[in-house]
């Protein structure tokens, strides 16, 4: 069963970090990704650039509207995600707890339904 692990945290924390601190966090992410790959649980995982780079698209009555910024202003922003393939929710929750940002932000765990499967 596939789960999306959506990583939310206050992106100003990242902005305030020194180069050394960022390198340390990235190292921990790399180690987690490597471990998930070794166990055959890794499907996908990417960081997202900060919300000031976001654009939002809506189509209303046939017209495409593009606006600057994320779709909602929130305290914690979506900063990256993993897609993992594990037997059940407990396994997905355990991985979510190992994501470095879990200690400063929040990880939302959402099952990916297998439609037509």
């Amino acid at each position, binding site marked *: *069963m596939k789960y999306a692990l959506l990583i939310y945290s206050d992106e100003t924390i990242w902005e305030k970090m020194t180069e050394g601190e960022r390198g340390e966090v990235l190292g921990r992410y790399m180690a987690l990704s490597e471990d998930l790959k070794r166990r055959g649980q890794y499907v996908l995982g990417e960081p997202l650039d900060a919300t000031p780079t976001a654009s939002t698209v809506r189509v209303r009555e046939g017209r495409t509207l593009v606006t600057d910024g994320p779709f909602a202003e929130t305290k914690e922003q979506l900063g990256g995600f993993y897609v993992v393939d594990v*037997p*059940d*929710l*407990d396994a997905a*929750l355990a991985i979510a707890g190992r994501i470095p940002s879990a200690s400063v932000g929040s990880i939302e*765990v959402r*099952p990916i*339904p297998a439609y037509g*499967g």
Partner: protein
Amino acid sequence: MAASDDVSAGAGPNLASAHLEAVFRAERGRILATLIAILRDFELAEEALQEACATALSAWVRDGVPTNPRAWLVQAAKRRAIDRIRRDLSLARKLQALPELEGAQSIESQLESDDPLADDRLRLLFTCCHPALAPEAQIALALHTLCGLTTEEIARAFLVATPTLAQRLVRAKRKIRAARIPYRVPDGAELKARLEGVLRTIYLVFNEGYSATAGERLLRVDLCQEAIRLARLLVALLPGRSEAIGLLALGLLTDARRDARVDERGELVRLAEQDRGTWDRAQVLEGLGMAEEAFRLAAEPGPFALQAAIAACHARAARAQDTDWSAIVGLYDRLVAREPTPVVRLNRAVAVAEASGAARALPLVDALVAEGGLERYHLLHAARGELLARLGRSEEAVRALETAVSLAATGPERRFLTSRIEALAAGRRF
């Protein structure tokens, strides 16, 4: 079911229906747990069991009541489930997502090979109390599946509308299926954390039964008994756990006082004034044994073992004045060290008043008032009013008790507090 299992051919409709009702009441949770373990689908399991019960009556009247009615019902429900899976292709597809249940053929063989005597209720309890489900959904699910309470009964007990409660149950069952919340008892380090959640859920059920948060009735004995049933089940299926035994002891000892806690007019009677002769003696004895066992099993007793030990101190006192309050304060000290919540500290302050006098306790209660956080809790103001009254500060006492009345949730509690105010105004001693 083989014909040789039948004790008597052609049981009368009344006998068969009485048997079915008795089996259903006693075994529903266990049968359902077995079916959910196999099918991994709460709704399918419930529907199959319902259909099996509908056929049971006519079959039992025709062929006699089977020697093992539970096994009969499990088998019949399995067959119903297989029929449904075969009939309903979309359901089969849904179930195919589970690797262990690929195709109707393997589902069938799995159903047939399952041991109908296995007890799956512990797994069901852990699934119902999974932290990924909202606390109120955990409670509703446990009461519904394991205790067999109807949606209406649970809704009434928690004073919510039936459709609201029904929706809560449907959402929880869907989440279990969609997010694939596992149907298992966690192991190792995880078990300890998850067990705490299960105990908390049972405790919430008990608490709602014992001190209803609203309404006219002070006690909801039914919920207390369901909580004790769940705790008993947990202790039986997962023996040797201090906190689980402590929770059961706490429930037994507290519930043993139920008849003494309200008088014949339905009014509140405080512990000190209760007729201890009306306490349920057998339940007290069982609770005392459990409380001691919970303490013995833990190197460092947890919150439930400590609360059970406090309840045991009360239970051991033949008269209120025999209560060992300094022992109770000592237990509260340990509880505060584990759980420094305002409510625990308030209870400790009340014990200090009994052990060392109101003058020593009042500053502890005043500190809680100053901190805030409990200002909406009527018992904080009630306790403060009592202490002030004992210290002869009647005017302040009346004001504190009036605040308590305005915050109290149940009729009996409000009337009790009002009677204290009246006594104080009339100049009677407390």
